[in-house]
């Protein structure tokens, strides 16, 4: 079947098997390997992407269901050479180790802040509770998202602080 959708702001059109999962479409057909796959049961969240602004587990969505919709993956977070504050936050607060869960965590974190710019620790923990990180123990991911909440200007804020100090 034929699908068209917007991925990271670009229109894509492909012929696919109707049963193709969105995660495989993104990884195999589009070659965007930042989105990962980690389980068979919709539990791990390494596959999380944004579908029309809502984080979804792309292993649980058919590519056909995304037809006509807008998908955003980790590759779409950086704009015009500037990191999204959520990306900067993960660097600042050591929110990642092996990096495998990171793209999904970044997408969820971004969506949380869009909806709720100043989340509490519990709200952050709840937002990422459908995703597993085997490396970090979550505290630094929580701090990373808090950092992004506190620095909506992202890396520019870091430079600013450095100049002032």
């Amino acid at each position, binding site marked *: 079947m034929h699908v068209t959708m917007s991925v990271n702001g670009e229109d894509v059109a492909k012929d696919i098997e109707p049963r193709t999962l969105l995660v495989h479409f993104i990884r195999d057909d589009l070659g965007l390997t930042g989105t990962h796959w980690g*389980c068979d049961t919709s539990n791990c969240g390494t596959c999380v992407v944004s579908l029309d602004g809502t984080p979804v587990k792309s292993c649980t969505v058919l590519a056909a269901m995304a037809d006509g919709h807008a998908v955003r993956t980790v590759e779409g977070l950086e704009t015009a050479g500037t990191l999204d504050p959520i990306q900067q936050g993960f660097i600042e607060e050591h929110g990642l180790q092996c990096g495998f869960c990171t793209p999904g965590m970044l997408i969820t974190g971004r969506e949380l802040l869009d909806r709720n710019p100043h989340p509490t620790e519990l709200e952050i923990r709840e937002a990422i509770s459908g995703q597993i990180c085997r490396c*970090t123990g979550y505290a630094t991911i929580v701090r990373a998202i808090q950092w992004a909440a506190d620095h909506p200007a992202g890396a520019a804020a870091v430079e600013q602080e450095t100049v002032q100090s």
Partner: protein
Amino acid sequence: MTLVEEPLVGAEHGRLHDHNPAAADADRPIGFGRLQRKEDPRFIRGQGRYTDDVVLPGMLHGAILRAPVAHARIVSIDTSEALSRPGVRAVLTGKDLEPLKLAWIPTLSYDVQAVLATDKVRFQGQEVAFVIADDRYAARDALESIVVDYDVLPPVVDLRHALDADAPVIRDDIEGRADNHIADWECGDEAATRAVFAAADVVVAQEIVYPRVHPAPMETCGAVADFNAVSGELTLYETSQAPHAHRTIIAMVSGIPEHKIHLISPDIGGGFGNKVGIYPGYVLAIVGSIVTGHPVKWMEDRSENLMSTSFARDYIMQGEIAATKDGRLLGIRANVLADHGAFNGTAQPTKYPAGFFNLFPGSYTWDAVYGKVTSVYTNKAPGGVAYACSFRVTEASYFVERMIDRLALELKMDPAELRLKNFIRPEQFPYDNKAGFEYDSGQYEKTMRHAMGLIGYDQLRQEQVEKRARGELMGIGISFFTEGVGAGPRKHMDILGLGMADGAELRIHPTGKAVVRISVQSQGQAHETTFAQIVAEEIGIPPEDIEVVHGDTDRTPFGLGTYGSRSTPVSGAAVALVTRKVRDKARLIAAAMLETRPEDLEWAKGRWFVKGDPTASRTIQEIAMAAHGTMELPDGVDGNLDAEVTYDPPNLTYPYGAYFCVTDIDRGTGKVTVRRFLAVDDCGTRINPMVIEGQVHGGLTDGVGMALMEIIEFDPEGNNLGGSFMDYLIPTAMEVPDWETGFTVTPSPHHPIGAKGIGESATVGSPAAIVNSVIDALSPLGVTGIDMPCTPGRVWDAMQGHATPPI
């Protein structure tokens, strides 16, 4: 000894920095300290390259058909329908592998394991056939068309009955084998321990079960094999924690000469010991590529990962402890029954079939100790040494820390006081632990008291008294662990005959930038950052000017890889020493440049200067250019500023820590909440505190997982009940607290920079703190023991007076 640029005692709870001042400050100290990771820029952009991201031209996809039952004879396999399906290129069975001598391969414990079953299947999930097809969907579809006729046999599931006279014999493939016994191993002094027990005031016995768990990294295992029939070269991308060891073993197994194998271990999505073994799927990808003439990718799914790859633990430990009435420890005895699954594939140094269980005496002085481990076959997946276990120090440490608390309960003594009374004292190091290991250094009492201060131990006990008076269940649990990490020395420690040492090569380019090549492989531990920091500390080149190369056998020196927390103790030492070698060479060149004698020069970080005249100096960058320039070089210096070393560690390093856990238990449901957790670690010299803290946090989360949630269980037929993330529960952000950490610094006396390993400390140390906390909470109800995982149901049973072991 290089001094760390931070206090020797500290606490790190909460946010230390709004941003990383080190990265922004041009005057920052070069070397050790908090530094952002060099790996992060690619990962936060989704530009990491993991094995499943590798796509080669013409690449095909493999999928494995697995046994649906735990024990059965294979009567027949019919692959004809599968072969006729669209997109299917080949289907392999064990019969196809036999002529290649690849139906069986050696395990890391000198046993053999089936690549594809030929005679019997011996665990549910065992590999039976391999389909190669144009894409992953076609390969999976074809699995359904393979018809296997099984003659089902009774399985051995309960390891307590594996040695019964009438137990079915699992390994009838081994000639002359008539039972399921693998090995007996012992350490310590049996007779002396018996004598100590006979004379003791107090003896307490306790069974302690460490059930089967699984490392379950977020990235599953897989490989992409690309065999070039013309050149005879194999390029193999593999999820491997030990690329060089894997290459050597694959050369020995496959007959492909080692120099024709290029093994690349790209970014790895977590390992935790799961990616140490050589799995049948790797071999099948290689054979698949040879057979089809195309590159073949094999990536397992999550169920395959949980059901067939290296599990961890599975120890039933009978413990006995002897002491005086006033709490002086006299003796400890461990008698262990170990489940190794259907093939003995545990990964540990050859002479240590029970890993480093020798550490079961823990951090205390004893008059005598004795440990015995009996390992058996069962109809379960092979493995047993994985999941950040430091070669079974997890089991050893959990055992002794549970036993100490059991004794404290018996003596009605505070468990902190009992520990303080019996610690090995600083002046007793190096300390022979009476079970074969010599601890290098420690200041146990200091670390313990620091932790008690940070957590507010006395106030917590006061709060507990008040809560108990109100009928609330609050527990305070302690674990004080000592690990031994950083195997070799090579003369004592090898894996399949490969001595446990690691190489490092350092090259300073003419412009003063450097590349350091290491044999170990990161799975998230930040080697690209911390190894650059070691070079930076030793030679004064900023870390951003130092490239760390790893995970590629063609570009790195030989070494045994990353597991058992050995990267910093072994490879980190190699990197420090190779840098010193370069520094010494630089001294000769600097002397020539300054027209003086080498012995008249002194080193300041980054430059050699004339003693008494700091203005007469040459920076390492200037020396690098000179080394490659036209200047006449001193005798014995052949140009360049490169060096290489292989480091053979003289001993393990012995990190340790004091962990405290506060739990609250819901009386109505048995649900355990970890309210607070404090980890005070001593890993010697601290290279990058941010990375250390991250390693500790991750391990603590493992501990919560094992203590409260994680277990791979089997039903009586041998069906795996933990084969998905719906059944095998891993902590999410909701189950863990905001970690509290602290540290003391006791350098290792024999490590070049005084560092010890840290990667597995928290996984080793934390489960006992949590379970001891649960028992402490339940002790007013008369509970003296409970085994992991402390699920609400199991805690509830314990509250009713019938705590049953999980296996």
